[in-house]
């Protein structure tokens, strides 16, 4: 059993004055009677309850102590279940796909809300750190692929790592890695993204060869339009239609004239 507010356990010290009051006892008021013998008869009839009457004061003390103890314990917020008391490291995926709208709200905002929810559910003794990265998912993947994974394994004993993402990843996250995955949406979102790109000018020519590798996280092939935008002229230089198969696609090469 752990306590979220152990400071309130000091309230148990209140049992001392309660016991003191019990031991001091308030002297009952004296009432004179000229019908003593009648009272004597009544009290004799109650003699069968004398054991209870002797215990009654003691029981009242126990009851008072019980109230003090219960109030103190309830204020100290005990946890009986095996709740995770580790510190939390929250990593938010800030890739472009997180800007996608989910039920009218940007995915990144949902991720922030999820992070807030996790932090607010922590106990007072737990700490949380939060980080975001445009390449968060890739960073996690790299960690998984490298020896850092072992470090994560060992760190997970003291640290709980939470990765909040829309699930649109261009890599496979090792399921064995002790990282909690929190999806911003219940349904798997479809995403098509550029995972590799390069441009090489052709020697002796104004043209250039462009390489683009696309990944489709959906289950079906989709046709997309790739815009080559020139910042200098602020105009679209090339518009290419590409059929993107499900999963990782082979690199697509095309020539960009007068680039």
């Amino acid at each position, binding site marked *: 059993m752990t306590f979220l507010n152990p400071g309130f356990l000091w309230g148990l010290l209140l049992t001392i004055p309660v016991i003191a009051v019990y031991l001091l006892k308030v*002297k*009952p*008021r*004296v*009432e*004179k*009677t*000229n*019908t*003593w*013998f*009648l*009272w004597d*008869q*009544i*009290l004799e*009839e109650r003699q069968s309850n004398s054991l209870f*009457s002797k215990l*009654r004061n003691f029981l009242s003390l126990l009851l008072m102590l019980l109230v003090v103890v219960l109030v103190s314990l309830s204020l100290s917020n005990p946890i009986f279940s095996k709740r995770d008391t580790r510190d939390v490291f929250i990593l938010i995926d800030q890739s472009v796909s997180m800007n996608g709208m989910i039920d009218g709200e940007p995915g990144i905002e949902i991720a922030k809300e999820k992070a807030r929810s996790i932090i607010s559910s922590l106990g007072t003794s737990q700490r949380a750190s939060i980080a975001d990265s445009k390449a968060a998912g890739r960073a996690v993947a790299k960690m998984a692929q490298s020896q850092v994974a072992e470090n994560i394994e060992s760190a997970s004993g003291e640290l709980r790592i939470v990765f909040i993402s829309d699930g649109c990843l261009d890599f496979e996250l090792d399921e064995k890695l002790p990282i909690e995955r929190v999806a911003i949406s219940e349904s798997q979102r479809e995403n098509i993204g550029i995972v590799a790109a390069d441009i090489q000018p052709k020697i002796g020519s104004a043209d250039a060869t462009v390489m683009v590798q696309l990944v489709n996280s959906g289950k079906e092939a989709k046709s997309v339009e790739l815009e080559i935008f020139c910042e200098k002229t602020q105009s679209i230089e090339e518009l290419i239609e590409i059929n993107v198969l499900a999963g990782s696609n082979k690199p697509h090469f095309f020539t960009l004239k007068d680039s």
Partner: protein
Amino acid sequence: MSLTDPSFISRLESLFLTARRVLGGSLQADRKSTRKGIQSKQLAAALGYISLNCHDRIVPYAMADKLQPIIEPSRGRGAILPFLRSLEQTDTFGSDTQFLKCIKELQARHTKKGVVLVISDFLYPDGFDEGLRLLQGMKHDTFCLQIHDPEDLKCEYKGDIQLECVETKKRTKVTVTKKEVQSYEKAIADWNEKLRKTCVKREIGYLSTSSGMEFEDAIIQIIRTGGLAG
């Protein structure tokens, strides 16, 4: 108000005119100096006054754990003031009232038949039955005048209290709940009812009055309903 106060005596005078007939005999006063005690003294004074006015012989006693003469046997109007003075000076004494012992003492002192008027609350720890039986056996014309305080009939106590006997000063701790209140009120009602039934059974005159009642009213009630006046 003093028993020898002229206004009290004038009230006794008017009472005497109302009563027409008097009674005489031994008179015993309750020993308690509470309201009941005051009431019993006033009633004893009134009844004693009537008796002395009628030239009856009265022998007043105070009663507790023994009989204590209030004044020597007296007769005639000339004894009224000494009687009232002595009655006024009578104070509480002794411990628990021992009714049977007192009646036995009365029996030893007075063998001649007479009218015995017992003014008391009849709350005797040893009971009243044996004493009344003895009085009946002595062939006295006996009348029991019970004075009860309204506070005795109801239990006003609540919670944890320490009961103290006014006579023996014994103390005990009691927690008075509704159940105790009911038990007490039933016990006192049963006690008074038992006294009434005993008096009826033994052909003893019985009347009960409250200490809150004006003594003239009490006397008139006694004389009218008790059959003491014709």
